[in-house]
Structure formats: structure tokens, C-alpha cells
């Protein structure tokens, strides 16, 4: 059995990188396994650095006092919630168009982490809103559209969970994910389109940052930490999905015997 596996997963004879090599679960699985410790390590180190910068080095804000420090979690989590949805919709769309199994598996692996970050963004926003706005929740355009994003993630997961055939679940989820993409630009531009309570974006590509450099660095470090965390978690989740879906194949049986 191992000889046949090697012929399939062996290096191609040309020196060009063979990009589609990792498009099959069998070859992607060990690669993901190798990458996970690296990204987990990066996430750990960056989180410690970012939290230190945010909570010990960054100065107290002259308007909001120490309450502003929630942005070190809130803003990166909100970015991730939207970004993961787009990535998830892209993977789902690729899986729908080209019938590639790994991309659909990536889409279903991304959904729970995206939902987690959406919830985190809403929850930290509520914790910040209580001392600053005097309310846990306001029916503001950005808050509402972020809440819809959470519903979309939950709908995606519920639809996939209720369909037994994994191929059909992938495709149905992909259609839903693509339909829901409409919401992401609405969230992103909501602070510009509507005159709302939620403040405008803290960081603007065309303007000099309106906050102290150390605050910005702390926030960006934590954003990178969340990226690394997301990659590590999604890769380990996709490995579980692969083992589950490919349980009838020889390489999974071999893997299971080796790790028994």
C-alpha cells in the first residue's frame, strides 16, 4: 500500500512547484500537521507581546480612560470575523465551481472560528459600550449588521449539519455562503453610509493614524496573533474533517493504526 501512495504523492520530475499537489486530502493532511505547531507557536508569542504592549505599555486614552483597551481585542476580532467570512465564501465557491474536496472542507473548518470571532467582536463591543455609551447594546447599523453576520455563520453551520451527504452539504453551504457575502460590505461601510453611534474606522490607509503609534502597533500585533491562531485552529479542524470524511481510504486506516 505504501508503494502506491508514494507514486501519487512523490515529487514531480520537473523543478517547477506543483501547486495542485496539496489539493488532495492525502497530501494536504501531513502538510497541515507540520504547519500547525509553527502557527500555534507564532500565535502564542504574538499574543503575549500584543497583550503586554496593549495593557502595560500603551498609555491611557485621554478621552475614554482605560476602557479603550478593549479595542486590542475588539478591532482584530471584528476584522477577522469579516475576513474569515470572505475566505470561507471563496473556498466554498471554489469547491462549488471545481468540485475540489479540500476547499469545501476548508470552508466548513473556517465557519466555527469565524462565528467565534463574530461573537467575540459583539461581546467585547458590549463590554466597551456599557461604560462608554451607557448601554450594552444599541440598534446601530454596524452592530446590527455584525449580528446578522453571526446569524449567517450559524445558518451555514446548521445547514451543513442537517444534510447527511457531505457532498450535498458542501454545495448547499456554498450557495448560502455566497449569497451571504452581500452582508460583508454592508458591515464594512455601515459607519460611512449611516450616521451612527459606532465610531468610524480607527485606521485609514489614506490618512495618518489618529491614535498613538504604540496603540496601533499593539492592535496590529494582536491582529497578527489572531491570524496565526485562526490558521492553526482551522488546519487542525480540517484535519479532523479529513479523517472523518476519508475514513474509508487506506491512508486514513494506516494513520489510525500508526497512532493507535
Amino acid at each position: 500500500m505504501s508503494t502506491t501512495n508514494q507514486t501519487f504523492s512523490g515529487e514531480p520530475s520537473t523543478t517547477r512547484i506543483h501547486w495542485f499537489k496539496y489539493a488532495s486530502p492525502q497530501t494536504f493532511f501531513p502538510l497541515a500537521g507540520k504547519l500547525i505547531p509553527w502557527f500555534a507557536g507564532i500565535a502564542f508569542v504574538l499574543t503575549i507581546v500584543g497583550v503586554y504592549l496593549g495593557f502595560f505599555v500603551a498609555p491611557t486614552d485621554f478621552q475614554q480612560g482605560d476602557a479603550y483597551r478593549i479595542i486590542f481585542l475588539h478591532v482584530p476580532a471584528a476584522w477577522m470575523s469579516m475576513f474569515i467570512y470572505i475566505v470561507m465564501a471563496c473556498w466554498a465557491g471554489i469547491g462549488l465551481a471545481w468540485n475540489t474536496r479540500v476547499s469545501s472542507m476548508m470552508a466548513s473548518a473556517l465557519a466555527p472560528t469565524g462565528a467565534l470571532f463574530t461573537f467575540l467582536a459583539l461581546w467585547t463591543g458590549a463590554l466597551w459600550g456599557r461604560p462608554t455609551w451607557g448601554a450594552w447594546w444599541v440598534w446601530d447599523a454596524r452592530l446590527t449588521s455584525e449580528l446578522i453576520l453571526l446569524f449567517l455563520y450559524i445558518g451555514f453551520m446548521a445547514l451543513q449539519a442537517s444534510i447527511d451527504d457531505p457532498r450535498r452539504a458542501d454545495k448547499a453551504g456554498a450557495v448560502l455562503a455566497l449569497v451571504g457575502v452581500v452582508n460583508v460590505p454592508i458591515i464594512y461601510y455601515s459607519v460611512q453610509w449611516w450616521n451612527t453611534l459606532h465610531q468610524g474606522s480607527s485606521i485609514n490607509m489614506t490618512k495618518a493614524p489618529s491614535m498613538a503609534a504604540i496603540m496601533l502597533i499593539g492592535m496590529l500585533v494582536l491582529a497578527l496573533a489572531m491570524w496565526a491562531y485562526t490558521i492553526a485552529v482551522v488546519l487542525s479542524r480540517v484535519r479532523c474533517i479529513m479523517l472523518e470524511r476519508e475514513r474509508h481510504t487506506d491512508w486514513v486506516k494506516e494513520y489510525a493504526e500508526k497512532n493507535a
Partner: protein
Amino acid sequence: MLKALFCVVRRDLLLAFRRRSDVLTTLFFFVIVATLFPLGVGAEPSLLRSMAPGILWVGALLASMLALGRLFALDYADGTLEQMLLSAEPLTVIVIGKVIAHWLVSGVPLVLLAPLLAVQFDLPAESIGVLFLSLLIGTPVLSLIGAIGAALTLGVRGGGVLVSLLVLPLYIPVLIFGAGAVGAEASGVGASAHLLLLGGALAGAAALAPWATAAALRISLE
């Protein structure tokens, strides 16, 4: 293609006419939901006046969601849908026909009934006019978006509850602009901005939703 479209619309309308009780059930659901609110929150006229657009819109949303089950489920059960998939006409056209018929059966009665219910809530005449217009533009969007959800959950276990989870979040913008139009009229700002946004949503949904629905139907019937 137009002939196929008319044929589908005619057939679905005829089927709905033969099973009138289904149509009337959702309609009475709308009436009863709207009647429950004054009993629940108290019959203070100024309170009712400010809540009426939201209540009537949410009622219309829920009623049109309840009607979604009828859109494809019966044809799916007796195999007609499979024949439609195999037919030479594009599936998108058939979907558009079914959505039009669905709107005529479940949307239009809601639109016609809403002004009558608005009287219960002591709404002034101009607000009733705007409510009528906003529902007239908004309910086709509900049918178009709902068709995607109905197609995705075809034959899935727990489909009825699932469809509400998938479709209601996507209905929220329609609700906001629809109910907002009446509120804007009442506060003197004028409803045209909200109505134009609703029209934009209708144009967008009409352009994209039938294709998504057709794709979802193909997936469900694989």
C-alpha cells in the same frame, strides 16, 4: 421562454386556487399575529401608532416565510420538480415563474390586507399609503430571497425550522427599509429614500436570486 414562464405561473396559480385553504391559512396567520400585539403590549393609541409599521412588517415577513414550504416541496414530493429540471427550458425561467406565482398567491394578499390592519393601529392615511407601497415593493424581495432558502432545505431533515434560520437574517435589510419608510413618512422626512433603497434591493434580488435558487435546486435534486 416567455411561454414557459406564463405556463409555470398559470399552473402554480391554478394549483394554489384548488388548494385555497393553504393560502388562507398564511393570510389568517398574518391577521392573528397583527391582532395579538395590541392585546400584548396594551392598546395605548400613540404606542400602537409608532409600533404599527414594525408589527405589520414582521407579520408579513413571518407569513411569507411560512408560505415558503409550498414553493417547491409539493413538486419535489411528486417528482414534477425533477421533470422541470430535465426540461429544455432554462431552470432559471421556471424558478422565476414559480416565484412570481408564489408572490401573487402569498405576497399580494398581504399587501392588500395590510392597510385594513393598519386601521386597527390608528395609522394616518398617508402612512397607510406608504406602508402599502413599501409592502408592494418589499414582498417580491421576500419571495425571491425565500426561494433560495426553500430550495436549499428541500428534503432536508428539520427543513421547516432551518429555513427560518437561513432566510430571516437575509430578510432583515428589507424589514429595516420597509418599516423605516413608514417611520420616515410619519416623522416628516419623506419616505422616498427608503422606498428607493427597497427598489434597489428588489432589482438586485431579481437579478441574482433566481440563479442562486436554480443552483440550489440542482444541488438538492442531485
